[in-house]
């Protein structure tokens, strides 16, 4: 069988175009990995929040460059071969690449014919899984960057959410508390389940909760902004009878635990969040 031939000039252009595309997309992939963002270069806006486009471009450029390989970029070829372990995979001729692709398609078709429904089902699920993995991967750096920004913003902003439905941010409140109190402060906290995160964020300041509030919290761990749609569970009430019912006077509790500050936090009302010296 004769191998398809290509005009040398066209081959040269395709090779250089493939190389340039590959390099450009490699830069895009690197930027998208370490600093995913939407970039503006003059009138052009380039989104590098997902890695799909640079990856596809990189692969297309690579295949074009290797299919028309004429010695250009030898230094890169050696390194890419070492990276991929695929020495001589695309032997430099379009015909060879095409023959390999045809062999692959033939083998796959034979395999599919020989399989029963069980193997075919498994294959379909595995292919879908592969696509989901790729989908996860292509946005992974952007998701991680978003999480990092969200965490940084939670210290910077007092609240978030649409106007009228703002949720107070505990981390920002904690930073204010840390600024306003000495490290050995002992704080009585009013505010429910955020107390646990509060205790970590303001450490080494010691945080306490009144027993009656602790009981209320133990009766309703589900009372959190992200779980507000939960219906009550009738069985759960059985355990409320075993929770401590003592409710000491706050003043006695404050004296007994040598508390010197009282912090109040309300996730739904920023104006109620405050720090006061203990009475």
């Amino acid at each position, binding site marked *: 069988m004769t191998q398809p031939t290509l005009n040398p000039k066209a081959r040269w252009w395709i090779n250089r175009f493939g190389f340039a595309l590959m390099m450009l997309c490699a830069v895009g992939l690197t930027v998208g990995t370490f600093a995913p963002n939407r970039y503006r270069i003059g009138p052009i806006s380039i989104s590098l929040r997902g890695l799909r486009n640079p990856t596809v471009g990189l692969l297309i450029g690579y295949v074009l460059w290797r299919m028309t390989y004429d010695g250009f970029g030898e230094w890169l070829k050696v390194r890419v071969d070492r990276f991929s372990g695929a020495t001589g995979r695309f032997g430099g001729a379009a015909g060879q690449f095409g023959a390999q692709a045809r062999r692959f398609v033939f083998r796959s078709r034979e395999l599919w014919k020989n399989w029963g429904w069980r193997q075919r089902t498994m294959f379909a699920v595995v292919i879908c899984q592969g696509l989901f993995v790729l989908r996860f991967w292509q946005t992974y750096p952007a998701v991680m960057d978003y999480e990092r920004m969200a965490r940084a913003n939670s210290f910077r902003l007092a609240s978030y959410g649409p106007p009228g439905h703002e949720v107070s941010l505990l981390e920002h409140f904690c930073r204010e508390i840390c600024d306003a109190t000495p490290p050995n402060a002992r704080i009585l906290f009013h505010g429910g389940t955020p107390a646990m995160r509060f205790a970590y964020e303001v450490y080494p300041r*010691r945080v306490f909760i009144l027993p009656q509030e602790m009981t209320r919290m133990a009766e309703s761990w589900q009372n959190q902004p992200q779980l507000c749609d939960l219906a009550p569970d009738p069985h759960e009430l059985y355990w409320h009878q075993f929770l401590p019912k003592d409710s000491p006077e706050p003043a006695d509790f404050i004296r007994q635990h040598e508390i010197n500050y009282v912090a109040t936090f309300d996730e739904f009302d920023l104006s109620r969040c405050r720090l006061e010296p203990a009475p």
Partner: protein
Amino acid sequence: MIGILAGLLGAALSLSSICAIGGVLARVLRAGEPTDVRLARPSLGWSFLLGSAAVGLALEIPLAIDGQITHRSFALIGIIGLAVLVWTVAGWWRNSSPPRALPWDWLADLPMLGRLLAVVALPAAVVFCCRTDVSGYDARSIYALKARVLYDTGTLRGEDFQDIQRVHFNPAYPLLMPLLEAQVYWTQGGDARPALKLLFLLFPLSLASVLAGQLRRYGGRGLAAMLALMLLLTPMFMECFEGAGLSGSADLPLAALILAGVLEASRWIRRPGWRPAVCAALLLGAAACTKAEGMAWIAACAVGVAGTWLLRPAWPTRRALATAFVGAGLLALIVGIRQTILHQLPDSPYYPSYFAALDWKWIRQLGDRPAVVLQYGLAEIARVKFWNLTWPCILASLVLLRRGRLPADVWFWRLTAVAGICASLLALVITPLHLEYELRTSFSRLMLHAFPLAALIMSEQMAASGWSGQLAETVRFDELANEPAAENVVETVARAA
């Protein structure tokens, strides 16, 4: 900037020391096992898991003796770790063995596309871990807070642990992860430095490494590495939402220790000896000291061992019984240390225990709960945002027809996985908390504990049916592999028959 660099350097030193200690243990306890043929040394996964188990358990000993741990204990572990690290690196230097290959053990077997995925995802994860503090609810309120208290005060007898009005999520929680975190703090020189999350990143990486090492028994290196990468790129492993691998929660470390422990126990079932018995006891003991669910998984392993012996035609040999005694003795010692520590901590009445829920008066009210839990479970396995399609893959693999009988170790994996999952579902049914709340916040985490083992069972089933071998032949995953598979499933099946 100097603080950040000091934090990074401290975390890197601390984690390298843990790996070095684990590497020595792996050489002793896994001697004779095909580990990494090219490197001729234990893989990163086994080194880190054994190292973290050994270091965590060693740090528990002073707490068990008198409820206190001083910085001298952290220093001792740090110095031993650094000495072993120096000795290991010097050994590489002398033998001209390439240290550059260390973090790449199974990643080096990936085909090109896999390498491209890894080259992008792993640096993104490392950068994220270096730049952020632990962020999950449990990560902060349970583990990192306890780590700070232990690093700062070094005692279980102070008000931080003993006063139940002091905000401290469930004081009576196992302390292995906080102790490991405190060890990293010690090397960093403070508890306010970044990069603690690198500790948590190493667990999914180790898990994938251990799994890839095991899967090489059932096929070529390339296919094994590709399957391990697919597992690693599951959102539950590499994201940071509540309970996921990079949130700083202890669920993924627990899953990794369970998988490694089960693999060692199955090695002991195949070839009874003191080494696998001790190694399994160390890893499963560490799992029990990581989370309370670890105890349930030890029970599941016991069910698995008993079931495998019952299903096998031959009764255990005297050697098997003698080495089982060694392993069980060590496990009992570790659980004893755990219990001694927990007995020093107050039982807070605000956190009802699951053991208290094993009460007939309570259980007889719960007739409607099993259906709710199962329904939620079915929805969970199709939750692609957490798992991609791995659970459907696992279920689909069970319809493939195997060639030959089930080997004993595969019986053991399956019985253990079934017992562990049943125990998790039972815990959800009898939970003393609001059921829907518990399902939404705990179901994925409980499934995560069984997930690596289920993925291992799936991969073995795919290999034993010949499916993955045919696929690998067609796609030519393994044409790049330098060595053949260490031991393939056909041999295993033949030997079992």
